[in-house]
């Protein structure tokens, strides 16, 4: 923050504020806490989730026999691997979940899916804090831009088509960020058309600054479009990631469904064992065996696909290595060439081995298929009890669904495995999504800001006050202040929670969409007070003096208005982070926030809610984490407010 230029006090206001802030113990503690949280968020993965447990050791042992891959860090996004290797142990009868109480390896215990709670929490801190900061970033950027424009250029009048450009661009941008290309396109085209029309008029009116601003806006439109296009469908990576996300989602749903069913059966059995007679019990046992057979088959099939993927990758490597050997020999680097050919021989041997194993696995699949068919053929006699009957029916449907989903996904999954291995999908998947949403958001806001600057430039030039009656009719004008503030009021009228829920329900579950939605629905307050602040500042003597000296508008904004108006923005942004973290965790708790592979605190709390009576710490710990974070940001914000504005002490 640069110093306000015009004040001539012996001490700088910044130093005064700092002194006041340091004396405020709760605020300093809150700041320390926030630093700690940020450090935890950044370093999280390096420290947690690495200890193999007995279960995991068993898994490794099993994986060595079946040749399957095993993912030790069960907190990674690799739901696929998780499903393949742990489905059986975790979710099959006798319906034991692998939730464990705290021990020396898992300091906070594990949750129902066997994930280390501490690791989830630690990773969750990074997501939750990122969401808080980015959402506030969006809302502050938008709020300050709109409020500043309304305050500073408020009296100027602009043409209504500009409003259309802004609104259309915003709508298109939001849809684009939400990955609904088809719906976004008409908006963006219309906005671009508005821009082009105005550019033509600007050229005719010889307003070249405006032309340049419009050009940049147009380029940005194109950039958003091209960028999204290239990522979404233009590259094989984009497609493969889309598939990966689909498959991961479905497997996750499946896992949940099977687990719920297991819990349900257990509940019935626990609640009233006598309600199930011997015959029904036999029926259920039979059904369970059927399910076991079906899942055995699925796991075996998946193992085959995994192997096929590896074989394809290895096969692709062979010609490359041969070419390399030839190159080395041509350069008469015989030693290197012989090393390479040794590797090649080893790889070929491994390839052969893998082929053999695949054949074995295929045989196993066939056996399991037969087992399933035999089990299926066994007649199911009448079931006496209605509840048990319902249960069995649902179980049968589910079993069929399991097989169908996996079969239907066969080809996609194959592709995912191949591509995913090349790209190390399990780790880069998350980064990729964050980046894409972030970059899209940034581009859209750049676009809006540039368009808005154009509004300002156009209004400044005074070109809007046309004498031509035709222009007046077709390009009606409105004052900038009215334009911005009416839009703000409309946004304030819509009940925010309704809007957020509606928008979130329409899109896939993704915490970065939550972030965008929270940011886009929380800027109105900032806009209003920034406008008020600037309106009062621009009437003050030092601004008038600067104007009288002929200082340019942009210099006045950057040297005088921004330093003086920044402290309330900082305060409201700090408190805004608290609000955003709270909002995100509430939405995740309601089940419409975080996606399946995103562990935010709200989601961890929601997961823990199932074990409210058995394992209360699963809800206590994420709850306390949220409480501490929100409290810290609130205290820090309040401390900053008092430091910047000592008159408000104690209010």
């Amino acid at each position, binding site marked *: 923050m640069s110093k306000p230029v015009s004040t001539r006090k012996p001490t700088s206001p910044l130093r005064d504020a700092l002194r006041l802030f340091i004396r405020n113990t709760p605020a300093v503690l809150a700041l320390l806490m926030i630093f700690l949280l940020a450090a935890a968020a950044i370093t999280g993965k390096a420290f947690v989730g690495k200890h193999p447990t007995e279960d995991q050791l068993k898994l490794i042992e099993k994986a060595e026999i079946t040749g399957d891959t095993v993912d030790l860090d069960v907190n990674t996004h690799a739901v696929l691997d998780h499903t393949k290797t742990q489905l059986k142990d975790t979710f099959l009868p006798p319906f034991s979940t692998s939730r464990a109480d705290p021990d020396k390896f898992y300091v906070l215990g594990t949750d129902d899916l066997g994930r280390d709670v501490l690791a989830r929490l630690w990773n969750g801190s990074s997501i939750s804090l990122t969401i808080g900061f980015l959402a506030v970033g969006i809302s502050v950027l938008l709020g300050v831009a709109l409020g500043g424009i309304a305050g500073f250029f408020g009296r100027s009048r602009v043409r209504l088509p500009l409003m259309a450009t802004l609104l259309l661009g915003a709508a298109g941008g939001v849809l684009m960020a939400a990955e609904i290309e088809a719906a976004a396109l008409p908006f963006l085209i219309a906005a671009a058309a508005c821009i082009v029309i105005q550019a033509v008029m600007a050229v005719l009116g010889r307003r070249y600054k405006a032309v340049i601003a419009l050009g940049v806006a147009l380029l940005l439109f194109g950039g958003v479009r091209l960028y999204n296009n290239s990522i979404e469908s233009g590259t094989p990576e984009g497609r493969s990631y889309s598939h990966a996300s689909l498959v991961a989602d479905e497997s996750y749903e499946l896992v949940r469904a099977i687990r719920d069913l297991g819990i349900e059966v257990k509940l019935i059995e626990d609640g009233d064992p006598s309600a199930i007679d011997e015959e029904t019990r036999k029926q259920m046992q039979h059904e369970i065996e059927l399910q076991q057979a079906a899942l055995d088959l699925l796991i075996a099939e998946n193992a085959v696909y995994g192997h096929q993927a590896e074989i394809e990758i290895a096969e692709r490597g062979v010609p490359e290595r041969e070419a390399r050997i030839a190159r080395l020999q041509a350069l008469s680097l015989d030693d290197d060439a012989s090393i390479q050919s040794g590797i090649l021989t080893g790889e070929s041997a491994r390839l052969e081995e893998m082929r053999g194993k695949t054949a074995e696995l295929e045989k196993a699949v066939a056996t399991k298929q037969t087992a399933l068919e035999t089990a299926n053929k066994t007649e199911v006699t009448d079931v006496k009890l209605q509840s048990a009957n319902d249960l069995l029916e649902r179980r049968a449907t589910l079993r069929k669904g399991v097989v169908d989903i996996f079969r239907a996904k066969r080809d996609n999954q194959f592709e995912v495995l191949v591509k995913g291995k090349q790209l190390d999908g399990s780790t880069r998947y998350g980064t990729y999504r964050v980046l894409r949403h972030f970059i899209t958001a940034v581009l859209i806001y750049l676009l809006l800001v540039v368009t808005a600057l154009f509004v300002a430039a156009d209004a400044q030039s005074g070109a809007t006050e046309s004498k031509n009656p035709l222009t007046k009719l077709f390009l009606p004008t409105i004052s900038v202040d009215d334009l911005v503030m009416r839009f703000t009021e409309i946004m304030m009228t*819509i009940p925010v929670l309704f809007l957020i829920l*509606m928008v979130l329900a329409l899109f896939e579950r993704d915490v970065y969409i939550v972030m965008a939605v929270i940011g886009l629905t929380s800027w109105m307050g900032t806009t209003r007070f920034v406008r008020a602040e600037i309106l009062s500042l621009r009437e003050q003597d030092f601004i008038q003096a600067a104007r009288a000296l002929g200082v340019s508008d942009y210099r006045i904004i950057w040297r005088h208005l921004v330093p003086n108006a920044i402290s309330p923005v900082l305060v409201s942004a700090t408190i805004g982070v608290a609000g955003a973290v709270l909002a995100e965790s509430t939405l995740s708790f309601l089940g419409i926030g975080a996606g399946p592979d995103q562990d935010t605190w709200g989601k961890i709390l929601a997961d823990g809610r199932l074990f409210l009576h058995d394992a209360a710490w699963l*809800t206590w710990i994420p709850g306390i984490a949220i409480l501490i974070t929100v409290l810290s940001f609130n205290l820090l914000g309040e401390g900053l407010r008092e430091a910047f504005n000592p008159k408000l002490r104690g209010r």
Partner: protein
Amino acid sequence: MISYIVRRIFQMGVTLVIISVFSFLIVALAPGDPFASQLDPKSKPADIERQRDQMGYDDPVVQKYIKFYSQFFSDLGAVVTGDDTHEWELRSARTKENVLPTMWNKMLITLPLVLLTVLITWTLSFPVGIGSALRRGKVPDRVATILSYAMISFPGFWLAILVIKFVNGTMGIPVVSPYTLGVELEGPRAFMDATWHVAVPAVIGAFGGVAVLSRYVKGQMLEVMDQDYIRTAKAKGLDGDTVYYRHALRNASLPFITMLAGLLPSLFGGSIVFEAIYAWPGLGRWFFEAVLAKDLFIVITSLFVGSALTLVGILISDLLYSVADPRVKLA
């Protein structure tokens, strides 16, 4: 005055039109076929086509918009005039219920919860806020400040489930849903049952509100007590209570008329989270379920009615303000 109201109503109309277009577009252009789940999977493609035709699913957006809002206003007229013979037009494709009458019934279910929440919030905030303003910087004020920070920062949904665990698990009193299901209670026991069921969510819902509002009351009181006329009142020897309650509080409470604006829409969507957690079959939960099921008509109607209520609330509070404070001129 009358011309002011007329102008405001006209502005409200314009705002509502924009909101209606906006909300309709968001919902109508969203991906996915919201009717897909409502069609019988066994029916033939031709039948599906016909059903979609009947629902007007493939009509142009503009036509859908006009049809929806004409149905909405025709139903709204019937609700307002209490016309029993009216043939309801707006109907949810999912649950086959008439949207507006159902909305009215759900609102009646939500009403006690929201009213109690508001009552608790207001009756607690004013004494706390005034008390800590009068004892500024002393122990009660500090305790109130610390408590209010903690209460603002407390995740409401977490508190809600902790309270369920405590009241339901430890004390053995069922609190989820408006009354204990599957048990026939009579007389005072039924009354106690209903009281517990409404009081717990209401207290939890008021939790954050008390913190915010009491600090606002405190701020208002402090601002007014710095004014000259309070000093004058003290100087001419009026006792403390008269100064604080007759002079200061009266002027400090004026801004709370503005807060009345928030009451009307909060009847509507104030308790989505708590209704979802406490299985309260009111408006919030109804909307939440409709949103999850992509039930377009319910979603758009709720958004529209919620926005309209907000606007009406703002208008009423502006008018009240001008009545209460003669210095405010309506322009």
